[in-house]
């Protein structure tokens, strides 16, 4: 799985919208779409322990990314289905488009660990993985071992990569960008939150996901390499060893599911991402017209009286 990468990619998507969508796509749509796959599946991956009894998945990677399991939550297909429901319900182009972009970004980023995602669900129920780092969520190790493995492997490099992408587009984090690009696309939502928060709080709320991603990356990495005292192969160490080799780190067994040849995954993932952008660019104007028609219908329809 990916950690802070999912927080950074929200801003990366926001900063790299197609030209005609700039200032018109909902940040909260991207945010919700990007977080939704893990909202739906991750609570049971680590589970909870109450009075010494563990409640959670017995095979976390199968539950999280497999089918049968909740793996379908990490597919572009399910993202499209959710987006269609949102669109038919609200006819809100800004939110629907943002939601699908965020959802696709999450599902496609997660092909990097050793389990990957059921990328072509429901047409093909096999996982697609590049195997860049080890998927390490286990019942015994829980969140701590998972974090230690991720932040000792190329997972850390992935987080840093997304951080660099956002920092290269640093304007996306500025007050001016928030005022001119973010607020107009979501004016009602920001106005509603603005009833309880001052402007400095609204701006902080916009930057908060980036803040959380950066801090969790620093915090887990510091803990894993300076504070933790793991026993690996019978030897007690200060900090988990780094291993930036493919499918690392060596000191944990990378979880896996039946998957396609990793060499075809990256081109396929990029093709799907390009397909999502292409489809949304083509649908942008028709969706805008449909939204305007719905709004016109609402304003001309007779008001109900008691």
């Amino acid at each position: 799985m990916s950690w802070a990468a999912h927080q950074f990619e929200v801003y990366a998507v926001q900063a790299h919208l197609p030209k005609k969508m700039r200032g018109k796509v909902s940040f909260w749509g991207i945010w919700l779409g990007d977080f939704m796959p893990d909202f739906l599946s991750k609570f049971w991956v680590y589970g909870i322990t109450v009075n010494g009894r563990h409640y959670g998945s017995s095979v976390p990677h199968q539950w999280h990314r497999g089918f049968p399991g909740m793996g379908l939550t990490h597919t572009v297909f399910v993202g499209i289905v959710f987006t269609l429901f949102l669109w038919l319900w609200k006819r809100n182009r800004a939110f629907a488009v943002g939601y699908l972009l965020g959802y696709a970004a999450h599902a496609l980023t997660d092909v990097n660990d050793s389990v990957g995602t059921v990328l072509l669900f429901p047409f093909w129920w096999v996982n697609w993985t590049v195997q860049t780092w080890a998927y390490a969520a286990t019942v015994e190790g829980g969140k701590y071992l998972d974090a230690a493995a991720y932040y000792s492997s190329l997972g850390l490099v992935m987080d840093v990569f997304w951080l660099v992408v956002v920092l290269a587009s640093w304007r996306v984090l500025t007050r001016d960008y928030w005022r001119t690009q973010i607020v107009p696309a979501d004016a009602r939502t920001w106005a509603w939150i603005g009833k309880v928060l001052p402007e400095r709080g609204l701006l902080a709320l916009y930057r908060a996901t980036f803040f959380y991603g950066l801090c969790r990356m620093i915090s887990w990495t510091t803990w894993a390499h300076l504070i933790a005292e793991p026993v690996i192969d019978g030897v007690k160490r200060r900090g988990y060893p780094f291993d930036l080799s493919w499918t690392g780190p060596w000191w944990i067994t990378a979880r896996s599911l039946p998957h396609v040849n990793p060499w075809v995954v990256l081109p396929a993932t990029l093709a799907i991402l390009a397909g999502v952008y292409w489809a949304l660019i083509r649908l942008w104007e028709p969706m805008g017209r449909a939204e305007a028609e719905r709004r016109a219908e609402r304003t001309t329809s007779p008001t109900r009286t008691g």
Partner: protein
Amino acid sequence: MTAEVEDLDHRGSRRLAGAEEVFWYLFAAVTYVVASIWQKFLLNWIIGPLWLVAVVVIGPAVWDRLRRGSRR
């Protein structure tokens, strides 16, 4: 006077800018990282964002109140 009015938002709260803004964001980051290294339950997507918002909203307000109090 005009500059002071421009520094206030729709709720009459002070906007942050420059070094003061950097200070509060850094303060939030350092305290959150240090606290969460030792208390992992803080590392979640609700507490993390709320931490920043709370520091940026409450911090300057408390600071302003303390300054006003010390002037009297």
